[in-house]
């Protein structure tokens, strides 16, 4: 018991430190790097959201870019109607979550690769719809009123990301909900037969994993000031969520964070140093392939403490772990 | 040249956990030898190691005079060993007939294959009825029949059977053991893992009792069948 308390205290100290560092970052680095860090944050959130679905529930979505893009468009449209940004971004999150719930109902009946491709197909369909709809600007894209305040966007991203990570951590590692989700990943039929409302759980997870990308899309839109189907609805957005998570470590909290930092930062660093030619792409590609080849459990496996799958401690009071989780 | 199977000091590990701790045994040509032991004793692990499905950690395995412990499973199979794995390993997306044909993959004697196919169908008429059904949609017991049938199709000189009677109706359990006897009469060798130790010892020549990765006892089948501890632990007291 002693030990547990200590380690919790230690964790708290770590978290406190991280929060302080995160808060002061904007004052410590140049605006260029602040931009990059803001981008990193965004990708952490996207990868983490994807991980909620794929890592814990085992449903690999290739359509998550669509939620990001929808979020961006909903925000842009709402703001063009005069709605305040914060409200617009929240509307975007709720909209994408609701949309995911609707599309999830039929789609989540599919398994494995079929689910993956179906999500990809609807994401493409959405991109095409946005291209032809009258109020999305089509191929001309949409412009948002610029508010060029790096710090603001940094903190918005940070806030959302903390929210994503915290919710993912709480739901998937602490609450019983996470166990149910993992049970579905392991054996859907058995989970259903033993009383879990599999359909409802799957839809909730899908909606949750779409909620944050929706908000992030909204922040992105306002941050970059210009959105276009090719920039916010491109398939490569989903691809990157996948690769970042795999790179970092699937089904862990730290994995997507590490993956996003490494891939996005790495990409940008290579881009800064070798970006005057396309050579940096060779390095990016090579790096991804090599990590997957030699570190199949992702980069988290380099840090054993982080890579550890969430296996509860063996103690003589199995009940104690239960009480602290459910609230 | 030594024939049959000769295993010396076999150690097998899954990751860091050693499941079999230095086991030696042999099966002579034309014998039925049975391995009995509780859940998790390491019986299946030994069979997997012998057929080359999993790598071994230490020791040697010799089959018909060839050292096979470093050979991949398809090479071992080509030497004439057929393994009915635990969990049956049915090709679920292939028809029953194709499953059986895969069994005969390494054979080229059309005539012999045909004869064996007829033999299998005679043994398990259900398979003949369902020859076009996909393996995966068979009932559990039907799959077990298919797994055994498929092994018979290999024409191998030695069979490793991992719980062939599991999930089979009592009548079929009998048939399976009868088949074992038939096969042995054809001069083939059988290494049999069975939970139904009474039945196994009833048809076997010799047996080994495995306890948590070690051989605890071995001897003639009758000796084991009448051994009080074996009887208590694995036969469930008196034989029904």
């Amino acid at each position, binding site marked *: 018991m002693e030990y547990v308390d200590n380690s919790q205290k230690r964790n708290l100290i770590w978290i406190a430190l991280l929060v302080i560092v995160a808060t002061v970052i904007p004052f410590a680095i140049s*605006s260029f790097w*602040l931009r990059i860090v803001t*981008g990193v944050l965004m990708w952490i959130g996207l990868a983490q959201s994807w991980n909620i679905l794929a890592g814990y529930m085992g449903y690999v979505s290739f359509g998550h870019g669509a939620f990001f893009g929808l979020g961006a468009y909903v925000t842009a449209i709402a703001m063009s109607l005069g709605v305040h940004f914060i409200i617009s971004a929240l509307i975007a999150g709720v909209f994408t979550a609701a949309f995911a719930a609707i599309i999830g109902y039929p789609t989540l009946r599919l398994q494995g690769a079929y689910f993956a491709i179906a999500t990809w197909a609807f994401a493409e369909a959405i991109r095409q719809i946005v291209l032809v709809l009258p109020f999305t600007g089509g191929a001309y*894209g949409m412009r948002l009123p610029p508010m060029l305040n790096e710090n603001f966007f940094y903190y918005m991203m940070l806030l959302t990301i903390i929210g994503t990570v915290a919710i993912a951590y709480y739901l998937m590692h602490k609450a019983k909900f996470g166990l149910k989700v993992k049970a579905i990943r392991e054996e859907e039929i058995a989970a259903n037969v033993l009383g879990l409302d599999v359909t409802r759980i799957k839809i909730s997870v899908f909606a949750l994993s779409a909620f944050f990308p929706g908000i992030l899309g909204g922040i992105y839109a306002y941050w970059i000031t*210009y959105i276009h189907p090719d*920039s916010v609805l491109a398939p490569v957005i989903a691809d990157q969520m996948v690769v970042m998570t795999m790179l970092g470590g699937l089904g862990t909290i730290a994995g997507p964070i590490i993956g996003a930092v490494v891939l996005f930062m790495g990409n940008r660093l290579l*881009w800064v140093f070798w*970006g005057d030619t396309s050579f940096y792409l060779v390095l990016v590609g090579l790096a991804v392939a090599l990590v997957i080849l030699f570190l199949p459990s992702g980069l988290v496996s380099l840090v054993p403490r982080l890579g550890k799958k969430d296996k509860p401690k063996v103690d003589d009071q199995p009940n104690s772990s239960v009480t602290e989780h459910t609230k | 040249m030594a024939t049959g199977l000769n295993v010396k000091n076999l150690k097998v590990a899954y990751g860091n956990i050693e499941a079999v701790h230095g086991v030696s045994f042999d099966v002579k040509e034309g014998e039925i030898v049975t391995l009995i032991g509780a859940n998790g004793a390491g019986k299946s692990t030994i069979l997997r190691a012998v057929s080359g499905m999993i790598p071994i950690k230490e020791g040697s395995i010799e089959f018909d005079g060839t050292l096979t412990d470093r050979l991949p499973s398809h090479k071992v199979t080509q030497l004439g060993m057929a393994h009915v794995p635990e969990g049956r390993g049915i090709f679920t997306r292939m028809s029953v007939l194709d499953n059986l044909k895969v069994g005969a993959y390494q054979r080229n004697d059309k005539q012999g294959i045909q004869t064996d196919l007829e033999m299998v169908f005679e043994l398990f008429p259900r398979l003949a009825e369902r020859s076009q059904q996909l393996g995966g949609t068979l009932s559990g017991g039907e799959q077990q029949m298919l797994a055994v049938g498929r092994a018979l199709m290999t024409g191998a000189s030695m069979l490793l059977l991992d719980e062939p009677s599991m999930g089979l109706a009592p009548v079929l359990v009998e048939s399976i053991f009868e088949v074992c006897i038939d096969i042995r009469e054809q001069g083939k060798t059988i290494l049999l893992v069975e939970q139904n130790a009474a039945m196994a010892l009833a048809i076997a020549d010799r047996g080994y009792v495995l306890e948590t990765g070690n051989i605890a006892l071995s001897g003639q089948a009758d000796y084991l069948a009448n051994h009080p501890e074996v009887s208590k632990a694995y036969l469930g007291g008196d034989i029904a």
Partner: protein
Amino acid sequence: GGPKQSDDGKNAEAERDYFKVGVITSLSGASVYGGNVTRRGYDLWAETVNAQGGIEIGDKQYKVEMVYADAASDPATGADAVERMVTTDEVDFLFGPYTSGVTLGVAPILEKYKVPMITGSAESPLIWKQKFKYTFGSIPAVDLTGSAPVSTLVNEVEGGAKTIAVIGVNDAFSKATAEAFKANAEQLGLEVVKYDIVPEGTDFTPLVGAIKELNPDVLAVGGHEQTHMEVIKAAKSLGFMPKAFLMHYGITTPDFINNLGTASEYVFGGAVWTSDLEYSDELWGSTKEYVEAAEARWGNMPDYTEAASAATGEVYAAALAEIGAVPPLSEEEREQLVDALENIKVDTFYGPIDFANEGDWYHNNVGLQPLTIQLQNGEQKIVGPSDVKVADPIYPVPGWEER
């Protein structure tokens, strides 16, 4: 807001004896082709200027140093690139991206830091309607340039086209091109028998098949080089030959001609510049000399995008000379530079460059005359408007078999 560094940085930095010039363009991604074309133009300018000792300001010469960043055809990456150029690399001014999308993504950041950018491409009219103070463009928007070739085909050829089919790809530039073609055609009384905007990556055979059935006099296409090549290939493979093909950007690229061979012959296009024009120029001497230099450097005939990009540098040089600012430029000097750019009119090998100060083409170059060109014997010939043409338009054009 913004980090202090840029402010102190500027003042703190010691005098430089060269200008730092940022180049943001697509070196990878969807628009890699055009991105590299613009880069060729920018590079040739820098090399030429430096070979001549640099930009002359007062009695001193200042060389230029180019700093590149790949926008990867993505607005967000472009925005990162600009931020880096401005705050870390502290460039004095910028050459802009190839695509309109990236331009729209980076323009607001330039407003924030007050750094001017001239783009040698980005022809979507959308940009100029936003009225960005620090963003300029040296190629006239496509809604302006699309008019000339249509009017040539209607009014300046024998028989005159009566019907037209217009297709375009659904990206900003291509769609604007198609719209311009259509609008001009309708205005000139042409019957538009088909108008369709297709998503990128479609197979053109079915559409071309349908158009063949309608048999219009002209098939006009809004797209980039790849689109144009595919449309021509599709038409040829279906044995369809209208009286004229009308395309816009892309047919002037060397790849279009190299890859299609005789099939590229007689295609009409809109342009604001061809190598046939005879302008004089301070840096290179004349259009002809520029073309020779570009050909020697890159092994290909320059097209109008490459030329516009090369000429862009000359505008900066002229404006800098006019205000007499030396590197590094302070914020004040950059403001002056923008003022100068707004008012200056520079004669280059590319033609006069004169940025509008108001209206829908705000800060876009309105100094040029839109031209109708036609590929004849592998060269772009100006065939209209009549007062500037160097060759007669060939119409109707010979069939596939007669080449």
